[in-house]
């Protein structure tokens, strides 16, 4: 999957979950600062990422994903 495809899928997940417009999201968007996500939102989002991309994201890696760009990079680097 290309980086753009991963990005589009992740933006799709975010617009659905956080009820924001796709054009308001960029790679720099921070989950906690820009999307007002709390710890429950973040765990839910990581589980959705795992399901969407059939990935396993260990807790210690999940903690490092704070922006949309970091989520895209993580999925890109851990593709099966």
């Amino acid at each position: 999957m290309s980086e753009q495809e991963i990005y589009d899928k992740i933006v799709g997940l975010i617009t659905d979950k956080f009820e924001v417009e796709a054009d308001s999201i960029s790679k720099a968007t921070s989950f906690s600062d820009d999307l007002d996500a709390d710890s429950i939102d973040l765990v839910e989002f990581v589980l959705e990422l795992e399901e969407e991309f059939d990935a396993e994201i260990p807790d210690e890696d999940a903690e490092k994903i704070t922006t949309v760009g970091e989520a895209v990079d993580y999925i890109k680097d851990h593709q099966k």
Partner: protein
Amino acid sequence: MKIAVDAMGGDNAPQVVVEGIEKARDEWTDLEFVLYGDQSKIKKYLKNSDRIEIVHTDEEILGTDEPVKAIRSKKNSSMVLAAKAVKNKEADALFSLGNTGALLASGIFIVGRIKQVDRPALMPTLPVINSSLGVNMLDVGANAEAKPAYLQQWAVMGSIYARDVKKIKNPRVALLNNGTEEDKGDPTHKDAYKLLENTEGINFIGNIESNNILAGEADIIVTDGFTGNAALKAIEGTATILLKQMKHALLDNGIFTKMGAAIVAPSLRGLRDMFDTSKAGGAVLLGLKSPVVKAHGAADSETVFYTVKQIYDMLLNDTVNKANKYFEQMSKD
């Protein structure tokens, strides 16, 4: 209607779980059960497997496990498998006596929230002095913080539950606060008061103080999870210490006091029965796509039976969908 049961959770599992489920199966002929857990241990107590399926697993979540980590690392545990069955629509509700935090996590992250509900809340039934129906308090610890909108959503869901399951026509909703006047409390509680006052479909009666939680003045008490948890534990702790001290005063102070104790014993037993909420079932995690209910880890088979009744009433009345529809309508208005 099918209920997924984590058969391994609780102090006396799977025995009390199997006994309570069998009694419930005999009572309600349209109910089916799937028990998740150690097959040989379950079979040891199961007398009749009619409408009871067993899904074997060796893995279980312990009381000491860290909740979110446990549901992510113990994917074949009885609780996680039962939650997944509900998520995949193979079952209609989830029931466990196990680790409360892990059940909250399973409910929120596996079963999933109703879209319009920001945060699910944990809602037990507490005894009150003037009614066997008790009072429902939420949230008692699923969330440490709350926004006024969460409290409003909990008031709505609690009211729907009280109407459907407890058959109270116009349940009284109160906001736990540090005074009864409407301007009491921090900004969250002041805003919540205004919001609740203007919420359609609920009967908001104002603020309530913690000394009146068990006074029977309200049917639903909404509070943030931090305060709710502290208040609940204060009540439990006070009751335990009081009973212990009473027992000590009656039995450890000579023969005459003991004779007096024998005379008042029947009244004391009556008091105990009055505060017995086992017929109310377990604590419900409200705000999820399907009913998720937690019975006390030390529950007996009778409580298991009544918790199934509670779940049955929620399924029969479509309680979850009513909340769903209410919030959908609210978001359109």
